[in-house]
């Protein structure tokens, strides 16, 4: 913090904010030299830690589902799941994640109109996903295969339901972000909030990859 920092700080980009070794002394970034990282980096890192802890939570549900897949209490196995519904849900969430990325580009360019449009599209796909999932759950329960039927179904409803609850919370957050961009503009703290939201939304899609692979596809071919 003493000798080289004064020389570095006179430069226009003393910390090389994520831009490769173009203007010298790149060995400082990421190694604690040259002072604390910019707030955007710290905020992203902190929220990334939260997301990873959430992934650990999900891994427990995944483990429970895989272990209990044969505990069916005389009832059916994963053959009751409609894979067409799963494919539609997957498409919705993937397009929603893509649209969230487009919203990030619009935020980076301070375009309120495109930010709101991309976020509205993101929310529409997310809402469609939730409705497809609610439809699937309701169908299973009316056929008598609710979460109380067997340990396998309990594990299924816990895992997929926990993801659905996350998406629902994400939709509420998304609405809040749209309102805050409209009311407060692209202020620094709002942008940091949006950074966290986009990380959250993309991470939910990553969890869904695990769900459709383990629960629906591998489940289907498990005897």
């Amino acid at each position, binding site marked *: 913090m003493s000798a080289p920092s004064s020389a570095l700080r006179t430069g*226009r980009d003393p910390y090389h904010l994520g831009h490769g070794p173009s203007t010298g002394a790149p060995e400082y970034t990421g190694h604690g030299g040259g002072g604390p990282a910019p707030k955007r*980096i710290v905020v992203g890192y902190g929220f990334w830690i939260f997301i990873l802890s959430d992934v650990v939570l999900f*891994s427990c549900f995944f483990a429970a589902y*895989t*272990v209990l897949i044969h505990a069916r209490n005389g009832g059916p196995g994963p053959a009751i799941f409609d894979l067409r519904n799963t494919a539609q849900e997957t498409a919705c969430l993937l397009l929603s994640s893509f649209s969230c990325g487009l919203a990030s580009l619009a935020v*980076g360019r301070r375009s309120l109109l495109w930010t709101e449009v991309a976020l509205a599209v993101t929310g529409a796909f997310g809402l469609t996903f939730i409705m497809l999932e609610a439809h699937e759950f309701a169908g299973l329960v009316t056929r008598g295969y609710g979460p109380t039927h067997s340990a396998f179904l309990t594990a299924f409803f816990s895992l997929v339901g926990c993801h659905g609850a996350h998406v629902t919370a994400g939709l509420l957050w998304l609405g809040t972000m749209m309102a805050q961009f409209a009311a407060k503009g692209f202020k620094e703290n709002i942008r940091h909030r949006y950074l966290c939201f*986009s990380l959250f939304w993309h991470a939910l899609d990553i969890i869904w990859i695990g769900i459709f*692979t383990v629960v629906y*596809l*591998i489940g289907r071919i498990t005897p």
Partner: protein
Amino acid sequence: MSTNREEFNLGSHIGEEQVAGGPPHEHPSLGTELRGYIIGLVLAAVLTAASFWALDEHVIYGPGIVMALIVLGLAQVGVHLVFFLHLTTSPDNTNNALALAFGVLIVSLIFFGSIWVMYHMNANMVPVKALMQQRGG
């Protein structure tokens, strides 16, 4: 790669500061960034389609399907991490990548550890029916 500064950070540069007084930051162009997201979308869609397609028993050797699905799933997670979350090898991402590595370790321990332990416990359990008969009779 080094000339057009394609290094993003986790979550892109949404919160990036404009340095006061200095010249504005050189953002990667809209086309460059958009291309990244479109490549990610196409790759993810292809891998998803391949997963659903691999389920058809006539396409892949039966016992290999589970492994194929796992590989396709992991590949898609990688695509999401790189193209959507912008987890790269840039210096600012060192801590994020380390945290991810630790997360992967814990998730593997929980997931594969549970399967391993419970498989052996199931194999060594007295069948419930036999247990009930023993108690009843």
